[in-house]
């Protein structure tokens, strides 16, 4: 059974590669409709709707507290939405039971602001964690992965330029290096979409740029869809195919990057300034 899913996902990922490369199809991978979330009367998400196309690099801009993290948590059902529907690939995420949800999560890679690596394990072990979902329990218990999985994981580390750190414990790596390992983990997962929640918010500017460039490159090479929240407008404009601007639980802006005008970004900034007051 695990082998079967492995083969399946391998095949399908090749297909995505082709479709993303030809960039003619506009298949929707993620469809969010009227998504709402309130915490005890406080509305964090106000019935928002948007689509993400397969292979797209989508950036969500917005100040802290605008609802970006809640949105991402709702998409993966780490948080239960109060309202609305989420469709991911062929599944309606809202109605899945725990087992189905686990299977669905196998193909969603998550990158966190705080990296969330297992500090005492090596970079390679952390990348191999991406295979946990499809690895038999006894192999996980003994931490004995197949030769094939190890080769694949090394390939993922190579893809983010971290091959030489494979056997180093991650608590000895810099923030930027740790985030690259975290990206490699999503690659090992063979994720169809990478959801990155403020991936560079705790990095210095140089590492931040490097991490964004690597994310952009591996996503393009492998046809992976990216949904990434950021604070920095310049990064957003440089990396994104499409930009969503959020504030106060609402979407203020949803445009292809080339159509985003200085006025638009000013609006986001103004709103940011207002929110800060």
């Amino acid at each position, binding site marked *: 059974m695990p082998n079967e899913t492995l083969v399946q996902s391998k095949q399908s990922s090749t297909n995505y590669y082709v479709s993303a490369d030809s960039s003619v199809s506009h298949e929707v991978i993620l469809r969010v409709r009227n998504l709402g979330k309130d915490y005890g009367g406080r509305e964090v998400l106000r019935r928002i709707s948007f689509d993400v196309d397969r292979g797209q690099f989508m950036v969500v801009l917005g100040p802290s507290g605008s609802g970006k993290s809640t949105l991402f948590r709702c998409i*993966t059902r*780490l948080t239960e939405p109060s309202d609305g529907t989420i469709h991911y690939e062929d599944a309606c995420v809202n109605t899945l039971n725990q087992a189905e949800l*686990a*299977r*669905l*999560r*196998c193909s*969603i*890679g*998550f990158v*966190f602001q*705080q990296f*969330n*690596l*297992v*500090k*005492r*394990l090596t970079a390679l072990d952390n990348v191999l*964690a*991406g295979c*946990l*979902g499809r*690895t038999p*329990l006894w192999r*996980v*218990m003994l*931490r004995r992965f197949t030769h094939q999985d190890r080769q694949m994981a*090394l390939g993922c580390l*190579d893809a983010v330029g971290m*091959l*030489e*750190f*494979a*056997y*180093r*414990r991650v*608590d*000895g790596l810099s923030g930027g290096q740790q985030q690259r390992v*975290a990206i490699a*983990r999503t690659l090992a*997962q063979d994720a169809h979409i990478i959801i990155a929640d403020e991936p560079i918010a705790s990095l210095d500017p140089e590492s931040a740029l490097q991490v964004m460039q690597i994310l952009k490159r591996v996503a393009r090479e492998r046809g992976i869809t990216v949904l990434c929240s950021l604070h920095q407008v310049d990064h957003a404009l440089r990396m994104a195919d499409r930009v969503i601007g959020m504030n106060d639980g609402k979407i203020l802006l949803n445009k292809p990057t080339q159509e985003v005008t200085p006025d638009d970004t000013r609006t986001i900034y103004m709103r940011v300034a207002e929110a800060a007051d």
Partner: protein
Amino acid sequence: MKSSFRYQEPRFELLRRDNLVKTLLLVVCAAFFVVFWRESQIDFEKLARGLPKIASWTVQMFPPNIQNINEILRAAFETLAMATTGTFFALIFAVPLAFLGARNTTPHPVVYHAARWILNITRGTETLVFALIFTAAIGFGPFTGVLAIAFHMMGAIGKMLAEVIEPAEQGPMDAMALTGASRIKVLRYALLPDVMPNFVAVTLYMWEFSVRTSTILGIVGAGGIGQTLKNTIDLLDFPQMITVLAVILTMVTLMDMLSDALRRRILQDRAAGQTIAPRRLSEEVPNRA
């Protein structure tokens, strides 16, 4: 620099509510202490009368009798064996109980309370009490001591391990769960490596503790050097007694030092200085296939 401003601070008022509460608390504590003092029948005169006896015994201890040293060392070894196997059995049951009895890893609140209850009861019952029970049930001998240690230590180790598990970082566990890994895989892969150094340190500490405890278990017939000690006390054989005490002290001190050094090393938790990196083969050997 001298400030030209003057400031008024609030005056201390005994009758203000919080000050009154503090004063009252102090009075209550003092009253309890007086009651406890009387209950304990403190009598320093009695102590003064007894001290010369101890002094004379101490003198009688010299020169120490080391004729039976082989027998004493053998008893010490039995004590060490008892403590170690007892801790081993305790650990086997303590680890699962710790996971069930830690808030962040328990499968269900009912299981949590049940596990905590077992841990508290076994931990709350002293090893010596277990030793008395097992001597009555299965008779004298070191195995009785092993069981006594295993039961008490199961609770003691389990509780400490649960306390190591509870503050563990949640982030990596969330990240693993989001890869679609099951709960048990998450615990194995994200939690266990994180808590491992503390697990080992706790076990070492408890092992050392067991060795100290098992030196007296022989007094109630549960094997080990305690039996030898009790015999010398019963016979008022002071030269022999000091030899036994010296052996106990030496063993316990060595154990302390060993366990301490090991724990310090483990808790330092330095990453192994491995600098080897994997090599990309296809670049060096382009036409391998």
